[in-house]
């Protein structure tokens, strides 16, 4: 945060703001005036229901994968910090394999090699989690979880040993050291990176259309190919994703302020 004395002069600040706003407006005007198609918003209106359904699927996918990725990340962090060397190596290898693959590859392999196998699919169906939505959320959880686990691990390892000594010295047990001293400080440090990863997750969910999940992007594409309407499909798409990602970023910033303290 800029201290008062470090603030820029107000007049210059305003001028700069006006110039930037004008530039953005000019850019938009230029782009839209060069689009030679006539607006066809009525077609978009006709497709509103499938777009809405797609948006809801994306919301469900994102919410499910957000929770799922936290579980996966927690397991991977625990796995990499345990006393058991075999478990550490396994977790390490898992993280590196998942991070080393493009999401598309992971999704295709995960779906066709694992989830689409008839035994697996049958088993999942029995528990009522056999749908593509569940599969997609699971794959996205694994992918994002691997990244989250590295962020969290970095945060935990950045807490100096002196803090852990102090915490043990006041009589905290292992769990309390983690709960009251290590975790709050680590969380504060990694919050911006976590938020970025969650925003990525929302956007990455668009890739799940390759296994037939009818999410937002898939619906917009279907609309686009059915009507040849270009921009009318993609503007709602952009708006729909921002509607998910901006609140996420907002929550993250609010949490940063809540956890703010000077180091």
């Amino acid at each position, binding site marked *: 945060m800029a201290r008062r004395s470090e603030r820029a002069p107000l007049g210059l600040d305003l001028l700069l703001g006006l110039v930037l706003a004008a530039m953005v407006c000019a850019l938009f005007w230029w782009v839209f005036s060069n689009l030679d198609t006539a607006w066809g918003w009525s077609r978009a209106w006709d497709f509103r229901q499938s777009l809405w359904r797609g948006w809801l699927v994306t919301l469900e996918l994102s919410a499910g994968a957000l929770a799922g990725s936290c579980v996966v990340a927690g397991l991977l962090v625990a796995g990499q910090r345990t006393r058991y060397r075999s478990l550490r190596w396994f977790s390490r290898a898992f993280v590196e394999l998942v991070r080393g693959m493009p999401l598309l590859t992971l999704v295709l392999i995960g779906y066709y090699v694992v989830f689409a196998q008839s035994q697996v699919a049958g088993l999942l169906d029995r528990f009522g989690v056999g749908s593509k939505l569940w599969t997609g959320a699971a794959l996205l959880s694994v992918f994002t979880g691997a990244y989250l686990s590295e962020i969290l691990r970095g945060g935990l390892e950045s807490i*100096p040993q*002196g*803090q852990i*000594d*102090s*915490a*043990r*010295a*006041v*009589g*905290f*047990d292992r769990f*309390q050291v983690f709960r*009251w*001293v290590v975790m*709050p*400080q680590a969380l*504060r440090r990694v919050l911006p990176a976590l938020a970025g990863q969650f925003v990525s997750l929302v956007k990455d969910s668009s890739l799940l259309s390759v296994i037939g999940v009818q999410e937002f992007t898939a619906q917009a594409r279907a609309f686009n190919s059915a009507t040849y309407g270009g921009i009318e499909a993609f503007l709602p798409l952009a708006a729909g994703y921002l509607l998910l990602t901006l609140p996420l970023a907002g929550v993250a910033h609010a949490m940063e302020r809540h*956890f703010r*303290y*000077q*180091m």
Partner: protein
Amino acid sequence: MDIDAQRLTRRYGALAALDGLSLEVERVKVLALIGPSGGGKSTLLRVLGGLEGADEGEVSINGTVLSADERQLLAWRRRNGFLFQQFNLFPHLTARRNITLPLEKVHGRTAAEAERVADESLERFGLTAHGHKLPAQLSGGQQQRVGLARAIASGPEILILDEPTSALDPEMTAEVLELIGELAAGGQDIILSTHEMGFARAVAGHVAFIAAGKVAEHGPSGELFAAPKEEMTRRFLSKVMRFA
């Protein structure tokens, strides 16, 4: 307090920070550990305080035998108070919360009780105006005083201080040493390591000179400072007291 340490060894890789150290003292109120840097003072304090176990040897304090069992060490740590050279306070908590949190979570006090105790000890140490501040907003001396307030808030059996003033400038050193002196005068059992020889002589009843992981010599502070028996102690004292 009574301390009976026998042939304590603590190794870090190939290096023996404690190398068969033995120390027997009885009915001592304040014990000061002095000696050259790297001699093993901090390591001995960590073992005595139950922060880590020794690799070999036995130690019992006031009749409690310290084992290598983490549960038993935890119980022992909870009976005592610690203050290190620096980085004692939790930077994400206010000074007051630094004191109340262990009282609530470790010593089972209610929030209201913990706050009452915290406010009392903050007042006693002249910190009432600073209770709401985060550690980063306090001077080094204030931080150590809060650390001291936290260490004694639970009424520790033994207060263990590892060079509590060596990160402070002379003025802040004086204000912290004064508080430690008051605690000693109030009957608190204390084990401390220090490079403040004047303070050790004035406040500690008993002094142990530690070098190369062993107790080279120990005795009542008046005797040890006036007439050190070992050549090593004499040389150390003449060096550090040259400008005192």
